[in-house]
């Protein structure tokens, strides 16, 4: 069933960029998980992987990225999708 919660996807040029930022956010204790990049983001979803961040954490994540000059392509919100029940990958 569609979920109305707003979530943010961090999108990347390639996996190297994504894995680097994933490592940084984990290191800083900021909740994030690797997820397939939604195709609805079209060109912004250049790389198949993204980092999924809950709305409550997005400001801290943005701040962390800014302070550490983290690289990414875009940060985009998405709602109304299915939600996985657990973090399968991290």
């Amino acid at each position: 069933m569609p979920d109305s919660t707003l979530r943010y996807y961090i999108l990347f040029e390639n996996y190297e960029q994504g894995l680097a930022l994933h490592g940084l956010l984990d290191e800083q204790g900021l909740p994030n998980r690797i997820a397939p990049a939604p195709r609805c983001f079209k060109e912004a979803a250049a790389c198949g992987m993204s980092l999924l961040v809950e709305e409550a954490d997005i400001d801290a994540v943005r701040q962390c990225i800014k302070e550490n000059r983290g690289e990414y392509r875009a940060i985009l919100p998405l709602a109304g999708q299915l939600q996985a029940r657990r973090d399968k990958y991290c």
Partner: protein
Amino acid sequence: MIYFDNAATTLHKPEGVIEAVVRAMKTSGNAARGVHGASLGAAGTVYETRKKLAELFHCPRPDHVAFTANATGALNIAIYGLLAPGDHAVTTALEHNSVLRPLYDLEERGLRLDMVPADRLGNVRYEDFERLLRPDTKAVVCTHASNLTGNVLDLRRIGEMAHRHGAYLIVDASQTAGCLPIHMEEMGIDVLCFTGHKGLLGPQGTGGLCIRPGVELRPFQRGGSGVHSYDRRQPSAYPTRLEAGTLNSHGLAGLSAALDYIAREGVGALHAAEDALARRFYGEVSRIEGVTVYGDHSQAQRAPIVSLNIRDYDSAVVADVLYTDYEIATRAGAHCAPRMHEALGTTEQGAVRFSFSPFNTLEEVRIAVEAIRDLSKE
């Protein structure tokens, strides 16, 4: 068998390398293709390997480490990605065909190429680089160490001269990666090409290049990358720009384990072990009547290689006898280094190359010395 052909490929690998390859073959998906656990496992392994190589070679960015199947692939990407007909380039007589043939091919299409000669000891005169560098020189392409003599080039000095003339320095580190310290920034290396299966002690089918940020290489091949799938062009970001097609994540898992081994043992300690064996071997065989040893063995820093001939015997015959009668594996012939053999005067005879690894022993060296002594009496 006593294996002294480590300059071709190291036969003895740390056990962890073999285990890592087997584990990866049971668990790895396709790196950078999909976001399920198997794919991410492979992508993570590949990314960690980039980080370890960037650290080892002091490459400022892990995403500027691109993987290939071997050093030849890396050198082709670097040479064709930077040079074009009309450019001027400088190389040396020490080079392997993996450097020479791409340059010759470009020369036929209009590249202007100059070569720094080598003397009978296999040494270059650094003044020759200065003499041959011009305002329009695009790159110096040179080896870190000759695969025939083991002579090492002073990259710091060459890099300084190249940059003073506005040229890039592309380095073939096939014989030194994992054996000698390499510091891209301090040595002024713009593109470092390496193979994973020699001194790095990893599996065959692994290699790559480290690119200094700011150096723009044209893609050598184009195709699937897992990113920007709807773009007609190869993605521009490194390393994707240079990595079309599925990566060898199984092999890279092994290389990653090999890099862990090297980090634990230390490049200095590993090289000290193989260098001691090479110098002991040189010290003994160079005193045997009828034996000619090539290269400059007075160098303080050398690749662990000793090439020799016995009287005027054909080098292939000597290598054959060493293997069939003594079970000693060496490499005879031309070693894909035609200009080096010309400089040494061994084009016809070739040479028998002994190349050492940290896993060889003094007892093996003793047996090889006795074999050479035997053969020199015949």
